[in-house]
């Protein structure tokens, strides 16, 4: 999978996320404390709402529509109304830039 220079680390607040569109697809890039970053699919698996307006808290992203929760490290859906996991993609920081490996 090609690695893509997605954004500057400072584009994302700590404990927050940023929408990232690439090709036909849309993703969410999360930043926890410092340089810890993660990347998942951008759309909630319940009703395909974008997670960009969601809440990031303790490695969990909460969907803005029905509060469905996913673990951003594994993409795991943590209970109703989300039952299907999110895809996750490797992400890392180098020289203040966030790189993600996307299909």
């Amino acid at each position, binding site marked *: 999978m090609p690695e893509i220079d997605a954004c500057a680390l400072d584009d994302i607040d700590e404990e927050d996320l940023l929408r990232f569109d690439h090709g036909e697809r849309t993703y969410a890039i999360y930043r926890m404390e410092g340089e810890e970053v993660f990347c998942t699919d951008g759309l909630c698996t319940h009703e395909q709402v974008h997670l960009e307006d969601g809440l990031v*808290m303790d490695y969990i992203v*909460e969907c*803005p529509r029905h509060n469905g929760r996913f673990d951003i490290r594994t993409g795991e859906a943590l209970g109703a*109304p989300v039952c299907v996991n999110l895809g996750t993609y490797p992400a890392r920081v180098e020289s203040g830039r966030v790189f993600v490996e996307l299909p």
Partner: protein
Amino acid sequence: MGLLSLITIPMERSYSLTGPESERAVEAGLANADWYRSPIDRKVLKGLMKRSDNPAMRDTAIWLGLLLATGGIGALLWGSWWALPFFIVYGVLYASAADSRWHECGHGTAFRTRWMNDAIYEIASFLMMRNSVVWRWSHARHHTDTIIVGRDPEISGMRPPQLIIIGLNFFGIVAAPQSFAAIFRNALGMLSADEADFVPESERPRAVRVARVHMSIYAVTLLACIAFGSILPAMLIGLPRLYGIWLLLVMGLPQHLGLAEDVLDHRLNSRTIYMNRLLRFVYMNMNYHVEHHMYPMVPYHRLPDLHEAVKDDCAPASTSLWQAWREIIPCVFRQLRDPRHFIRPELPPGAGAPSYGPMGQAAE
């Protein structure tokens, strides 16, 4: 069903989730649509969404403490009229207050800690005679398709409004037996057509298990009544869902009653009402209903702040429950003659353009 049809006022449209209106809503693009949200700075919103255990721990301790105290004293005084005020309060805490706990914990916003939300959600679901699995999905649909006819399973003010049923439901006379029958059916492993419409296959076994737990508790309560030759056990478990629900209807029916159907803007189909602290405790601030629908991730204890942040973009809030009902009552009586009539809240100058949706009915 036969009995119910005797007290049902005929309606032009079908509110069933599996009827013709459901297809119409999907075709029109009203299902799972994009809704208007009042603009709010992301940083401000993030601050408002922050979770905390403290407010809900305090409120839950008060709630459960009062529930045990009033129930206990009521039981001790059983047989004398002195028990009455205790049962009135117990009933309100059991049913009316449980509804808002059910709601807030169902969203997972009351507490920061997940298991606390889940535990109170299960308790409150039982008190409300709701299957905690089924209702989680029903409420999700209410948020996706708020007051979209044929899609929203939680429309309580149909057109024309079912005034006899609504009136009886102030004491749970129609809704509680219906809820009980639904759980009973679930316990036998069956879901109604509407339930099957929104509960995914994978969740159904859990719905059945939950229903069986509820039914077991009711069975024990019934046995206790028989063993003691007294209705007292049922006055503590089960019946409060009937005699204590009235306050919820007084506070909760105005959430959407009399307002537009089939719009994509909560400013047009929901109502925010100022209430005093006591009512807001019982109702967990759900009087800020427009705000809750726009941003369901904001916990109840921050809704007054969210209201401040978006109020210039919304119709003025009703100044009291009294004012809200004074607007609603003439409207619902007029709807008996003219089901197309509804209230059009006036947005302030400078507010975002209303999103009337593809039906455009509210724009006329």
